[in-house]
């Protein structure tokens, strides 16, 4: 059973819809005990980094997410929160599960980076098993993580500069793009994650 962390931030329904479509059981909850007992957690997120961290803290779920030892997947802003520090609006501590900072994308191109972009896979993250290099996924963001440890980088994309698209560090995974809005490629990535949780 996969728990979707409900801290008042993000489109939980489409994540739940996609897992159900794939035939995996999931639940949406803000209850730390229930979430801690899940086979895997998904941390969604939309909006600005400091506001989302405040809401996660106000929900009393920071400890639950940080201490989770089974597979964890942050999506979009949820991936950014995995990092040590965010620079959006103001410098703000993140969950610190992936060493690195979240910065405004340094590109000549228009921001937000919105639309379908192709993945360059790095390393061998279980998220991308069976996903061809160059597959397109759907992004909507202006900030992106910069991982301190190159081994944590699972995929990048090119938007006038190299942009971090996915991280995997032990049980902790992140997708800057929206797998739940990335067609068949996104469903494959979610299926890979869900299978880690069984």
């Amino acid at each position, binding site marked *: 059973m996969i728990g979707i962390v409900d801290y008042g931030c993000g*489109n939980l*329904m*489409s994540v739940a*819809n*996609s897992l*159900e*479509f794939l035939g995996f059981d999931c639940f949406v909850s803000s209850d730390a005990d229930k979430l801690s007992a899940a086979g895997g957690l998904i941390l969604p997120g*939309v*909006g600005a980094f400091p506001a989302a961290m405040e809401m996660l803290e106000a929900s009393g779920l920071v400890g639950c997410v940080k201490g989770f030892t089974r597979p964890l997947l942050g999506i979009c802003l949820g991936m950014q929160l995995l990092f040590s520090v965010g620079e959006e609006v103001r410098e703000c501590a993140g969950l610190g599960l992936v060493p690195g900072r979240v910065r405004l994308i340094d590109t000549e*191109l*228009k*921001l*937000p*980076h*919105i*639309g*379908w*972009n*192709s993945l360059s896979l790095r390393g061998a993250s279980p998220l991308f098993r069976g996903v061809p290099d160059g597959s*397109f996924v*759907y992004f*909507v963001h202006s900030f992106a993580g910069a991982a301190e440890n190159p081994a944590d980088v699972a995929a990048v994309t*090119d*938007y006038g500069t190299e942009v971090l698209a996915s991280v995997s560090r032990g049980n902790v995974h992140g997708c800057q793009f929206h797998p*739940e*809005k*990335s*067609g068949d490629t*996104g*469903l494959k990535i979610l299926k890979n994650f869900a299978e880690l949780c069984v």
Partner: protein
Amino acid sequence: MLAKRIIPCLDVRDGRVVKGVNFKDLRDIDDPVALGKFYNASGADELVFYDIIASAEGRPLFADILRRTAREIFIPLTVGGSINSLDDFDRVLKSGADKVSVNSGAVRDPSLIDAGAEKYGSQCVVLSMDVKRVGTGFHIFVKGGRVDTEIDALKWAVEGEKRGAGELVVNSMDTDGVRGGFDIELLGEICSRVSIPVIASGGAGKREDFLELFRTTDCQAGLAAGIFHSREVEIGPLKRYLAENGVNMRV
């Protein structure tokens, strides 16, 4: 690099798709969910659902369509039609929309753009505009194109971006329905003034029109309805044609 997008638009009235739909092999040819699934399988990069009447009776039907679509189709879904308040944003987002398209509601009360962007983020707010040439300028029209607001469309595009719209849909009434190509002049003028993505609408009649659009303007996406419904242009072959001609597509 970012791919250019091809977006079919489904106008929905009382739960059915309007505009000549010509899908003989679909059992329920004017069911928006069935048509949405077909387009998703054909490679559409996004779907736009437009609630034509948004009458009291039609609303639950429309919400049900959005919910059913969101359970089966996993690409971005934009919803428009009679969006006049934050309650309307809330209603369609809760039913499964990812982005909300505002049009005449934003002309009546431009602060709707700011309010939507503040509450849901700019990525969620699409400003859609119906534009027609009047004299030497471009004006914004409302009420299905019947009423000239005398608002300068180029200025309105800039104001929309400033207020927090994340994307613009520019529908040229001069080229709409003519099928002689997109309104390159208007689209070029708007693209040069804003930095948010511009989605071109109105005028596509053949695949070459999309190639011209992406070669001669900075538009991020081409939107059409009738030519896709009638299958005069099919999305899969269209995207392959564009990719073969050097346009970066998700194929």
